[in-house]
């Protein structure tokens, strides 16, 4: 159960969850799930549709309460937190990148306003410095500075997703939840986005919890992989170990069904 990560060994986990159980009526969505993430670690959750990946993400980020189990953030119980504290956490130390950028962006607000919103929400009141940070973040996610006052709905899908990442990272969160950030994008755009997420997470020492059904993306980004099936974590371990030497029959099926380019 302990994370076997060479460079992060022995660190106390940032986020730690144990014994998570959740049922939607007769359907078990999570069965006795445990997960932890240490600082700077990228963990991927893979599995087929309906295996409980997104539900797990929502439970871990406090958006949904489990039937049983605990989620701790730096020793603090996330589920017992008040809504105000959780929201503060969500806009300072956490970030959430939605699968659909339209869920994470304000489409009627310019790109600069989108990036600046989190800053203003935590109390930034200097227009010049908000603008400056928005510009520097747009540069980091490779959006041209001249587009700062354009509305996100005039952006392409890939640009919207990059804007969403800039908007999430502007307050320097410690942990970012990503729900299939490359879903619905074409392959070349996916590759650039994955590259961007990888370089940003390395550069900033971000911890990332990424949900994906794309094994290739998981191999590229993740230090560790959790394989989920029907609400259970069926296998977990270092990315290379899981993907090169899958133990569970389901993981073997998953790995063997990746198309070779």
């Amino acid at each position, binding site marked *: 159960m302990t994370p076997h990560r060479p460079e992060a060994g022995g660190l106390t986990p940032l986020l730690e969850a144990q014994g998570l159980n959740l049922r939607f009526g007769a359907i078990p969505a999570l069965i006795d799930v445990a997960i932890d993430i240490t600082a700077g670690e990228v963990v991927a959750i893979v599995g087929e549709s309906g295996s409980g990946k997104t539900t797990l993400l929502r439970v871990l980020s406090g958006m949904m309460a489990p039937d049983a189990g605990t989620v701790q953030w730096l020793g603090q119980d996330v589920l017992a937190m008040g809504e105000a504290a959780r929201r503060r956490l969500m806009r300072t130390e956490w970030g959430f990148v939605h699968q659909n950028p339209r869920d994470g962006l304000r489409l009627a607000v310019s790109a600069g306003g989108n990036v600046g919103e989190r800053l*203003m929400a935590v109390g930034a009141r200097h227009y010049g410095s908000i603008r400056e940070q928005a510009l520097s973040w747009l540069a980091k996610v490779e959006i041209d500075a001249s587009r700062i006052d354009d509305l996100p709905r005039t952006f392409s899908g890939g640009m919207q997703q990059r804007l969403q990442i800039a908007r999430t990272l502007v307050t320097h969160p410690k942990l970012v939840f990503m729900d299939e950030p490359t879903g619905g994008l074409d392959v070349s755009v996916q590759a650039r986005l994955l590259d961007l997420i990888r370089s940003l997470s390395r550069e900033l020492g971000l911890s990332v919890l990424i949900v994906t059904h794309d094994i290739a993306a998981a191999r590229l980004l993740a230090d560790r992989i959790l394989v989920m099936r029907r609400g259970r974590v069926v296998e977990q371990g270092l990315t290379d170990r899981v993907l090169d030497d899958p133990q569970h029959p389901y993981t073997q099926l998953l790995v063997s069904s990746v198309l070779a380019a």
Partner: protein
Amino acid sequence: MNSATTMDSPRASGTIDSPRASGAIDSPRASGAIDGYNFAYLDEATKRMIRRALLKAVAIPGHQIPFGAREMPLPYGWGTGGIQVTASILGPTDTLKVIDQGADDTTNAISIRRFFTRVAGVATTEHTADATVVQTRHRIPERTLREDQIIVYQVPQPEPLFRLEPRRTETKRLHALADYGLMHVRLYEDIARLGHIAKAYDYPVMVNGRYLMSPSPIPAFDNPKMHRMPALQLFGAGREKRIYAIPPYTDVRSLDFEDHPFRPIRAPHVCALCGSGDTYLDEVITDDAGGRLFVCSDTDFCAERQADTAKEAAE
């Protein structure tokens, strides 16, 4: 009136006389009011309900309190909220002033003033200094209000986040958590697009450092007058069924950025009638050839200044 009611009551056994008489204090009727209506139009139960909402509102400055707004004999948007608040706080000895866009002589102002003359028989005035209750739409009088005065605002939309977040449930949550980043995003957008904050009226304010509040559609020019005002400020929104308030001497700050501070906007002219250079002006078109005139929007203030000037000239 009391003798008439007790006379034809078969249940009256003599002892009931005195409670009846004291019961009449509940609905005082000043001379001049028409018969058939309770004092100030609303029934006493409704007034009590509104007063309860007002007490809550004063206790939590800037927080919107729901209340059961009644049908009033004027259309929504003409001041049904303000008129209900006024009716609930009015006493027989009060003197009422009603202004619409700063003027005492506009249709709405005259109608509401006449309404209260008829149903409450209270004295009315056009002079800000003589009034105890001022009901207003779109302006705060230029003359500084005193501790013994109450100003009642007519509010069309009490929710400052209305244009940014359409869900009432969500705005309630944002207020509860004091999560007002959204409003600053709007101001940011204005500066990014236009170079300055373009809101000229209904400019959002922070009350007592806690609640974001819509000051009703008064010009941004009037916002500084709300800050630590000695008079009690009450806000009634009839259609939206909300009441809110600012107690006397409460901090009211207009939202802004450090490098783009709030500035009250007024037309850069002097009043053509009284020559005032620091009041809020209305632009009046005088002919079809582009002729225009800038005059004080506060008619009472302008008339007083003109009278003063005339008196000085005579002396």
